[in-house]
């Protein structure tokens, strides 16, 4: 393990820039989160200008609970993306879990039995994804596009055109309620606990270091003795379980189980992960950054929704621009920086980083979506 630790957390937003001066890069990473924080401040400023309702406890309650499922899905996705893989099927697992929950409740099972069954079903979905990726060596992007359709289809097979609504109020009230008299929803407290666990695992354990090592260089990680496949299989199973949990929460929060819930959730969750500073090629990222990105996206959605004059499609446009900008901005900044450095050093020959650029650019970056 000790051989990997120094190379693993390469906190570099820009794959094309040279990897050097570790402390400097750490500082940039720090600044990435500072940047998101600044954006959050800006959104809150604009938001409170839009509506006096924005900076209230109620906005915190409603805005955060609306983001529960995106936030929860983003946690395992952060880990998977940090290894350079992707899981597009999370929202379909969520729907499958919801449909299964409705079906089993109709069959008369108690909630105490249903919830574990749903989590196990999620684990099985993750196991299938993970086996296809690690066992057969298939690209996760293609696999999870397939399972995205498969799991969603199975959700419809299980529950058909029904939607089940008669869940026990004890559970639905909990999912809809706030934590111990505060303005924080119960589901968000659960998320925060999960986020803390994920943060510790990713940033403070050998398992977390292994994740970054795999993302930074899969082959090197393998040669240094890491069981790459086993780790990835576990991550996919974890993703399945957590997605199933999100499905249970969504079902209880809306007191409705149906096969069509959560369509497109995977995209918002991935957007949050990328915006949070996790490189889509793997190797870098922090749970804290993802948390901030979720706050930013949630804040934007809340602010835009509070103004009846702003149509909802602006949320889509702003999310899209932010998503691209979150990677484009640092890349451009790195380029400008590099150009200046070359200028200031006069006749210095082109840096190796530049000539390597095409490789790490469009089609390049060895472990992109393979």
């Amino acid at each position, binding site marked *: 393990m000790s051989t990997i630790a120094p190379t693993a957390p390469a906190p570099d937003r820009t794959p094309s820039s040279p990897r050097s001066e570790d402390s400097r890069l750490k500082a940039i990473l720090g600044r990435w989160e500072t940047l998101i924080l600044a954006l959050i401040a800006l959104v809150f400023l604009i938001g409170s200008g839009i509506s006096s309702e924005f900076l209230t406890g109620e906005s915190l309650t409603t805005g955060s609970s*609306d983001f529960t499922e995106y936030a929860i899905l983003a946690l395992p996705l952060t880990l998977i993306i940090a290894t350079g893989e992707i899981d597009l099927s999370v929202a379909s697992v969520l729907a499958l879990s919801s449909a299964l929950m409705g079906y089993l409740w109709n069959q008369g099972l108690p909630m105490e039995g249903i919830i574990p069954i749903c989590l196990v079903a999620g684990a099985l979905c993750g196991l299938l994804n993970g086996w296809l990726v690690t066992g057969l060596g298939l690209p996760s992007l293609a696999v999870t596009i397939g399972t995205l359709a498969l799991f969603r289809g199975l959700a419809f097979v299980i529950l058909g055109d029904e939607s089940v609504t008669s869940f026990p109020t004890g559970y639905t009230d909990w999912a809809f309620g706030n934590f111990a008299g505060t303005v924080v929803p119960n589901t968000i407290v659960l998320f925060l606990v999960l986020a803390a666990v994920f943060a510790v695992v990713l940033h403070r354990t050998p398992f977390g270091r292994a994740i970054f090592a795999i993302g930074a260089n899969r082959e090197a990680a393998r040669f240094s003795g890491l069981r790459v496949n086993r780790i990835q299989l576990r991550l996919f199973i974890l993703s399945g379980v957590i997605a199933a949990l999100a499905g249970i929460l969504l079902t209880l929060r809306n007191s*409705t189980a*149906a096969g069509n819930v959560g369509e497109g959730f995977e995209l918002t969750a991935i957007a949050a992960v990328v915006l949070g500073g996790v490189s889509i090629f793997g190797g870098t990222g922090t749970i804290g950054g993802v948390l901030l990105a979720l706050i930013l996206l949630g804040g934007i959605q809340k602010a835009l929704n509070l103004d009846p004059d702003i149509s909802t499609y602006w949320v889509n446009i702003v999310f899209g621009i932010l998503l691209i900008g979150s990677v484009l901005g640092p890349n451009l900044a790195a380029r400008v*920086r590099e150009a200046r450095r070359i200028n200031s050093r006069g006749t210095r020959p082109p840096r190796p980083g530049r000539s390597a650029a095409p490789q790490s650019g469009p089609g390049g970056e060895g472990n992109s979506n393979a």
Partner: protein
Amino acid sequence: MRDSRFMRVLALLFAVVLGAAVITGCGSTKDDEESGSASSGSTAAETTAADSSATIKKGLNVVVMPKQLGNPYEELEDKGTVAAIEETGGTAKIQGPTDAAASSQVSLLRSITQQKPDAIVLAANDPNAVVPVLKQAQQRGIKVVTQDSDSAPEGRQIFINQATTQSIGEQLAKQALETAGSAGGEVAVLSATANAPNQNAWIKIMQTELKKPEYSKIKLVKVAYGDDDDQKSFQQAQGLLSAYPNLKSIVSPTTVGIAAAARYVSDSKYKGKVAVTGLGTPNQMRKFVKDGTVAQFALWNPEDVGYLGGYAAAALASDVITGKQGESFKAGKLGTKTIGENGEIVLGPPTTFTTDNIDKFDF
């Protein structure tokens, strides 16, 4: 040192982009709102509203929520609601989700509740998911009217039903019988999504209806789902005709489905042999009625549904009514309407469109 300056520049850049997006967002939508209101309601306000809404408060603030933005049928309904509210001297804003998911509607409704409008007029994507947030809205004194697609009764005070579920189901059964020909035969239903509450309720009534002796010659062979997606519906229509060679009629209780089925049949060898019927808008179906593919179809006027919803919301918010059975109020050009069982107001039986009358309608 230099790096931090770049990051600051970058932050500024983001701020500008974001700020610009938000500002243009406000700007353009406001413009749309104004031009929309100018064309739809202002002339009517002076002529009809003055007498019929004597007890209705001026300046009511109402939010209208469709199932999904960009859905043309819903847009027509919302146009009616906005027109009605403007006739009463209030303002109505349309705010809806960009997808037809229940959770998106719930999240928006929570924000709307915070805006504290006088009333919300809503077409629900899911009858139960919206109930908790609607209850919360009512606790704050916001009146809730559902139209077109109901929530569970505890979520709203009044539901504007385009026609009773029973009558639509009966109508669909009758259409099946009339279009299948005197000898009867096989019919199929081409519905919207598998989870669509309206369509599922209508089809259930239709199926019960078909068990009656007068429908003994009609056999419903399949309920297919086109997901309200043009291409999928088209493909489903094609599949139905291949799978059931003796099919006499396709009944599609959704505007997307009927148009797709009609287009398929009109361009195939089945034209004239297989009938298409169901619920559709005249503008979408005119072509197929004229070329003989479709003999008859039905629909209520969606603008009237919305219009009635608008007046009901205004009457509720002005305390003219409370939503109890038997109360009545004046609904502009639609005349006096009385609240029925379960807080429902039924607009009336749907209009049946044929070659004779289709040119009289433009929606």
